[in-house]
């Protein structure tokens, strides 16, 4: 009977769906949704891809991946190792350009 009592006392399992509706979407989420809907996110991703290739960032990441070797390496391993290095080595001009683009997008869709 002690098991039943503790089950009565146990707080209800948080329901994920209900939580989602209760919380207001954050500003970041709103911006993200707007960018995806308008297709701007896809365009920005393409732009970023192009800039990172041009400045050699992608080739540098490729050689970092190759250093790990070809055997006993999983995608998850690589992502785990490369992600912090990748984020840290994005050149400032590229960041600046993308931020500028996002700013103008926001300015143009301000309601």
């Amino acid at each position, binding site marked *: 009977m002690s098991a039943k009592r503790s089950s009565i006392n146990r707080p209800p399992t948080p329901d*994920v769906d209900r939580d*989602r509706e209760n919380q207001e979407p954050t500003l970041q*989420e709103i911006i*993200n*949704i707007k960018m*995806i*809907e308008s*297709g701007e996110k*896809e*365009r920005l*991703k*393409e732009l970023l*891809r192009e*800039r990172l290739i*041009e*400045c*050699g*960032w992608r080739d*540098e990441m490729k050689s970092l991946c190759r250093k790990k070797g070809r055997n006993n390496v*999983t*995608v*998850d*391993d690589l*992502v785990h190792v490369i992600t912090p290095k990748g984020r840290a*080595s994005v*050149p*400032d*001009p*590229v960041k*600046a*350009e993308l931020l500028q683009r996002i700013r103008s997008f926001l300015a143009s869709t301000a309601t």
Partner: protein
Amino acid sequence: MYTNPKPCKHLADYKLRHGLSGYNLLQEQIRTTPSGKSSVKNHQTEIPRCCFCNGYQKRLYLCLICSSISCSSHTLLHSQCENGHDIAVDIERSELYCVLCCDQVYDPDFDKIVMLKHLMDLPRSGNGVDVSAGRRSSKRRRLCSALELDLKKTKQLVSMRDLRAKSCYPLGLRGLNNLGSTCFMNSVLQALLHAPPFRNYFLTGQRNHEVCRKRSSDRLCLLCDIYVFFSAVFSGDRTPYSPAQLLYSWWQHSANLASYEQQDAHEFFISVLDGIHENGVKARNTGECHCVAHRVFSGQLRSDVTCMSCGYTSTTYDPFMDISLNLDTGNCPSTDLANKSLKPSDNTYVSTLLGCLDLFTKPEKLGSDQKFFCENCQERQDSVKQMSIKRLPLVLCLHIKRFEHFPVRRMSRKIDRYMQFPFCLDMNPYLSSSVVRNRFGNRMFAFEGDELDTSTEFEIFAVVTHSGTLDSGHYVTYLHLKDQWYKCDDAWITAVEEEVVRASQCYMLFYAQKMLYYKANEDLVCQPVSPRADPFLPIAGCC
């Protein structure tokens, strides 16, 4: 060549239990993004979120069995909750992922389904992929077998002996006198002398100059003169030879270049091949030309121009006798803000042949003044162009563009930048099949043009180098014969170490298909054979 990797245990189990049903259901949800990638997008406009943490910023995976979405941190959790839900699809990339192996996995059946959907979605052109084509070129095979016969004949001839030969240098090594700034000609001739199928053609008497109509009417025939030249060089006589007749014959053909001024070796090369082509067998209107110049040096380039608005790709094919490459300098095209580049100092970047080839096959955005008329959009649009090699020649001549001309400023200059080059070259990454395949991500899909029967491995046999300035420079050729390098500086031939060659400033690189190179080198072996008293055959040579 692509061999399918073995599926992991979990993928194999999944396939046994579910077959292709999961893939087929997924196919409807695959959309092609404007950039040409395949992503999984369900019909709802909601952004996909992880069912555990609601996150949307990490890699997201769609379970193939129950379609629930998990982020990379929670895929394992999903697999623990639901038994057997081990295989998922990366939503953004449409690539298979095994949750338990934590790794990407490959299944040709899956890729086929993705590709089919992708091609159905693309406007008309399939982004340059021709799905219907399954024909293999049998022409290439026929040409190769024809040249095989040549090699056997050469071997028979080479076993003759000429008593004039004294040294044990390989056959066909003979200095060429400079007739007045003709090192540009001598350097290219040395390379041609040792291009395997080209050499065999002239040495096995396929060029029957006895019955040449031009000669019999006392006119000049470039082909006959080349034949005579080959005979002289391979005769075994080691005294330097003066190719005066050949020079004169060439002047007749290229009147605009006839002078005692220094010419460009590459221009000479193209002009000689052109002369051979014109003098030779009449080309048929359709199909390939069978003159020796084309049989040996011609390949085919593929050019894809893709509209940036709709993805429609227009593909054209053009023949080539050589490929001119720009030096890769490691400089990124500058954005206005870029004062800081990724590499610490551009001065330490070494140009390499592979870098130049990468540059050659890199997608290039065409300028706004070069807008391409898109068939699909029916208007001029910004486009991207990408080159690749559809068909490799037997002998590949790579020309490094070291002479820059500025017509506006009316000046020219030479680029002295050192370029590193390999002795063995695998051209596979630059083939159309590889380049086109890469457009679609990591796929195990057989593309048309996957030539399984042609080799992509090449061996270097000649390097034409240039030293000095544009106006007063000197050409020297290094030949690679039987594992030894020889420096051919006009009349002077010396054996050199390979380091010397590697450090040289290359201008034209000559690579032969590996099999042809090794066979040709066998033919050059000096073997003591009893002399044959047959005066009819003009070439006699062995040491």
